[in-house]
C-alpha cells in the first residue's frame, strides 16, 4: 500500500497533467476547427448579458441573412438576437431555443417555419449540423441532439461533437503554422447573428408566384412538426408569445402558406408570412434588387424586412425602448456603429 | 547415470553450444524445437526410455543436469 503523501502527490501530478493537456487541447481545437459565421454567431450569443434580449429569432438561413436586430435597435430601440444557421435541423432549433431561454427571457420568440415541410436527413447534412452545433456550448440539450444524430447516422461519433477536434483533426494538413493563429469562437457579435450579404441576384418572381394552383399543399414532416410544437409548448410554459415567420423566398407557394397558417391557428400562435401579397406591398420588396438568391434577402432586402418587421413587432408586443437606458446604450450603440460601417449604412 | 555418453550426443548435435556453462539452453533460444526432437530421438535410443510430448518443457532441457534428471526419472519409472 502506498503512503497517503505519495498518493496525493501522484494525484496532484495527474491533475496538473490533465490541466496542461486541456490547455493544449483547446488551443489545438481553436487552431484546427473550421470556423463558420454561424457557429461564431451562435456562440457569441453567450456574451449577451442575462435577460437583455427582447426578441429571439431561431431557424434556418433566411433569418441569418434577412433579419437584422441592429436595424431594429436603431429604429425602435428593442434588442434582438438571431440564432440561425443554414438548414438548421428542427432538433437543433429546439435545442438552441430551450438553451437560450435558460438565460434570456425574451418578450417574443420568432420561429422560422419553412422547414416544417423538410425531410431532414442527418446522414446527408453533417456540415449543416456542425454549423449549428459547433458554436453551441455543451448542455443536456446539446447531448440530446447529438444522441439523435448519432442514432440516425452511426458513421458520426458523439465524441466528435463533444470534442470538435476529433472531427477537424485532419485539417493539420491545411494549416500554415506561420499564418494561422488559433481562433477561439466569437465572444461578442456586433451583428447579433445577422450575417448579411451584399450581392444582388437581380431575380424576378416565378410565374404565378403565390397564386393558388389547386394542388394540395405538401405534407408536414412529422419530426419537424413535432419539434415546432415542442418549441411552442416550451414558450407557452414560460408565457412567451410565439410568432411563426416566413421570410421572402421565391420557392414558396400559396398552398404552403395556407397550410402553415392553419397550423399556427391550431396551435394558437401568430403566423406572419412576408410573401403574402398584402405584406409584400407594405414591405416594398423589389425582386430585382433585394434578393441574394432565390431563398435569401441580400443586405438591402434585409434592411427593408427588418424595418418593417421591427415596427410590426414593436407595435404588436409593445416592446421596450432601451436607447436611453445606460445599461444598453453604450454597447448597442457601439455595435450599431460597427454594423452601419460594415453594412455601408448611414450612422 | 552415464553423463559422458550424453555429452557426446549433445556435442554431436550442436558442436557450437557450450553445454557445460549454459543453464538456459531452451529459454535462451540456443536449442530450438528441431534440436529438441533430434535430441529426444537420440536419447530414447541411447537410454531405452520413452520421452513423450508432455515431457518437452523448457525445465527438462535447460541444462545438462536437467536432461540427466529427466533421463534418470524416466529410467526409474
Amino acid at each position, binding site marked *: 500500500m502506498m503512503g497517503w503523501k505519495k498518493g496525493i502527490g501522484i494525484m496532484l501530478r495527474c491533475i496538473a497533467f490533465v490541466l496542461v493537456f486541456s490547455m493544449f487541447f483547446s488551443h489545438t481545437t481553436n487552431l484546427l476547427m473550421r470556423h463558420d459565421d454561424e457557429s461564431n454567431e451562435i456562440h457569441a450569443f453567450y456574451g449577451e448579458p442575462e435577460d437583455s434580449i427582447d426578441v429571439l429569432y431561431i431557424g434556418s438561413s433566411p433569418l441569418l441573412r434577412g433579419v437584422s436586430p441592429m436595424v431594429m435597435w436603431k429604429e425602435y430601440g428593442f434588442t434582438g438576437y438571431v440564432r440561425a444557421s443554414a438548414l438548421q435541423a428542427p432538433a437543433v432549433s429546439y435545442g438552441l431555443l430551450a438553451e437560450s431561454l435558460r438565460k434570456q427571457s425574451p418578450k417574443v420568440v420568432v420561429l422560422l417555419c419553412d422547414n416544417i415541410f423538410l425531410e431532414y436527413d442527418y446522414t446527408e447534412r453533417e456540415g449543416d449540423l456542425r454549423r449549428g452545433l459547433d458554436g453551441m456550448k455543451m448542455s443536456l440539450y446539446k447531448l440530446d441532439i447529438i444522441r439523435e444524430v448519432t442514432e440516425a447516422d452511426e458513421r458520426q461519433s458523439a465524441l466528435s461533437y463533444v470534442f470538435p477536434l476529433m472531427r477537424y483533426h485532419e485539417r493539420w494538413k491545411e494549416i500554415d503554422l506561420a499564418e494561422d493563429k488559433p481562433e477561439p469562437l466569437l465572444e461578442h457579435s456586433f451583428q447579433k447573428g445577422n450575417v448579411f450579404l451584399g450581392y444582388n441576384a437581380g431575380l424576378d418572381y416565378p410565374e404565378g408566384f403565390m397564386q393558388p394552383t389547386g394542388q394540395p399543399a405538401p405534407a408536414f414532416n412529422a419530426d419537424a412538426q413535432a419539434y415546432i410544437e415542442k418549441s411552442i409548448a416550451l414558450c407557452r410554459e414560460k408565457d412567451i408569445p410565439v410568432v411563426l415567420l416566413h421570410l421572402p423566398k421565391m420557392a414558396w407557394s400559396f398552398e404552403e402558406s395556407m397550410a402553415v397558417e392553419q397550423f399556427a391557428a391550431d396551435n394558437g400562435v401568430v403566423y406572419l408570412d412576408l410573401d403574402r401579397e398584402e405584406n409584400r406591398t407594405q414591405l416594398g420588396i423589389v425582386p430585382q434588387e433585394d434578393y441574394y438568391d432565390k431563398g435569401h434577402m441580400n443586405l438591402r432586402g434585409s434592411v427593408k424586412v427588418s424595418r418593417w418587421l421591427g415596427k410590426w413587432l414593436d407595435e404588436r408586443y409593445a416592446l421596450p425602448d432601451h436607447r436611453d437606458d445606460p445599461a444598453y446604450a453604450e454597447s448597442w450603440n457601439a455595435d450599431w456603429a460597427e454594423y452601419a460601417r460594415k453594412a455601408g449604412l448611414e450612422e | 547415470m552415464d553423463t559422458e555418453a550424453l555429452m557426446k550426443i549433445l556435442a554431436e548435435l550442436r558442436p557450437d553450444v557450450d553445454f557445460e556453462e549454459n543453464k538456459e539452453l531452451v529459454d535462451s533460444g540456443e536449442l530450438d524445437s528441431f534440436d529438441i526432437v533430434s535430441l529426444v530421438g537420440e536419447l530414447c535410443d541411447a537410454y531405452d526410455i520413452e520421452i513423450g*510430448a*508432455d515431457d518437452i518443457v523448457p525445465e527438462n532441457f535447460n541444462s545438462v543436469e536437467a536432461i540427466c534428471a529427466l533421463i534418470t526419472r524416466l529410467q526409474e519409472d
Partner: protein
Amino acid sequence: MAFTSFRFVVFLAVSAALYFLTPKRCRWVTLFVVNYVFYFLAGGRYFVYLLATTLTTYLAAVMLGNMASKNKTAFAEAKAGLDKEGRKAWKAAFARKKRFVLVPALLLNFGILSILKYSGFVCNNLNALFARLGVGGELPIFRFLLPLGISFYTFQSMGYLIDVYREKVEPERNLAKLALFISFFPQIVQGPIGRFNTLAEQLFRPNEFSYTRVKFGVQLMLWGAFKKMVIADRVAVMVDNIFGFPETLGGCYVAVAALGYCIQIYGDFSGGIDIATGAAQIFGITLDKNFERPYLATSIPDFWRRWHITLGAWFRDYVFYPLSLSKFFQKLGKAGRRVFGNYIGKLLPVLIPQFIIFFLIGIWHGAEWKYIAFGVYNGTLIVLGILFEQPLKNLAKRLGIRMECFSWRVFQVLRTLVLVALGKIITRAPGVSASVYMIRSMVENWDTNIFWEGGMLKLGLDEKDLWILFLSCCALLTVSLLQESGVKIRETLAKQNLYFRWAVYLGAVFSLVLFGVYGLNYDASDFIYRGF
C-alpha cells in the same frame, strides 16, 4: 467494440475502477463479470458458443483430474508388484482411458470452430468438384458469422485441457474461475493465446493497485494505438489502392505494396496486442509476449519465433512435438536414415510435422486457398532452409564470405524481409492467381514511375501523409532497434525529468489525435486479425 474506440477506453477505465474498488477476496469475481459484460456488449448473440466451450472444457478437465488422482492411488498400491514392462503397460492403459475423455472434447470444440470457419469453403470446393465431375447434387452452403475471438478462446481452452491431460496443471474446479480464464477481455479478441500455468494464477489472485504499472499499461496502449491508427491505417490506404488493381500497376508498385502491407499488418496486429497487453497490465496481469520485432529476424524460422509467438508456441507444444515424437514419425526417421542417409533421415520427423504445422497455421488465418498457399509457401521455405543450411554454409566458407559481421546480419534481415513480403503478397492479394501475377510483374515489368513521376501520390496519400508515414515508421524502427539492443523504453523514460516526460506524453497523445486515421470519410477498419 474496437480497441481504439472511445467506448473501449471507457469500458476499460470503468472495469479497472470496479476491480480495484472490490474487496480483495472477490476481485476475480469482478473480473469475471466484467469479461462477460464485455463479451455480451461486443458479440452478445454468440454467447452460446463461448458457454459451450467453457462447459465442455470444464467437465472434461474435471473428469481427467479425477481419473488422474484415482490412478495415482491405485498405481501406488500396485507399483510394488509390477516390473518395468508392467509399469509401462499400466501407463499406456491409463493414457488410453484418458483419451476417451480428451478426444471427444477436442473433437467437439475444434469441430465447432471448423464448421463455423471452414464449412463454407469446403462445401464450395466440393460443389465445384461435383460440377466438374458431372455429378449431380449440390451441398447447401451456410454462412456463419464467427463468434468474437472463437479461434483464440478455443485454442486457449484446448491448450488448458491438454495440459490437464498431461497432468501438467491441476484442473480448475471452480467453473466461474475457468470461465474467467477463457474469457479475459483484453485478449479474447485477438490474443495473445494464454497458458493456464502462467495466466490463471494472475487472474485469480487479488492484484494490488500500482500507479507505476497503470502508467506503463497506458503508455503501452498509446504506443499500440499509434502503431495502429497512425501507421497501419494510413499505409492501408496505399496498400488497398495497389492490391485493388493488381493488373494495372507494375512491379515497383507491387514491391511498395508488399512492403506497405508488411508494415500495415505488423502495425495493426502488434498494435492491437500492445493495447491488449497494456490493458491487462492495468489489472496487474502480464500477458505472454506475442511479437519480438519480427522484421529484424535473420531467417524464416527466426521470423516465426518472433511473429505471433503464442500461436507458434501453441502449435509447437500441442501439435509439433506430439507428431514428431510419435512412434510413426520416429520409425519413419529410422527408415529414412536407411534410405536417404543420416542427414536427411534424421530430419524427416522434423520436416514433415513442420510442414503440417505451417499448413495448419495457413488455414488458421482463414478459409481460402490463398491461406493454404501461404502455409505451403512458409513450410517449403523452412524445409528448404534446413536442407540447404549446411551446403550453403560450406559454399559461403569456400567463397570466403565472413558471416560474423554486421553487414552479413543486415543482409540476412533484408533477405528474410523479402521472403516474408512475398508471403504477405499471397495473403493480401485477392486470390492465388492474382498474387502469382503480381509477383511475376515484379520480375518482368519493373515499372519505376512510382518514384519519378509522382506515382506515389496517386495512391490515396498526399505528400504530407507520406511524410507522417515515413517519420512514424522511423520512430517505430528506432524503438525496435533500441529494444533489440536491450533498452527498456518505458523504464528509461521513467528516469527522465518531468518536463521531458510530459512532452513525450503530450506528443504521443496529440500525434494520435491529429495524425491518427479515424473519423468520418474513413472506414473504421477493425483489426485485421479480429475475424480470425
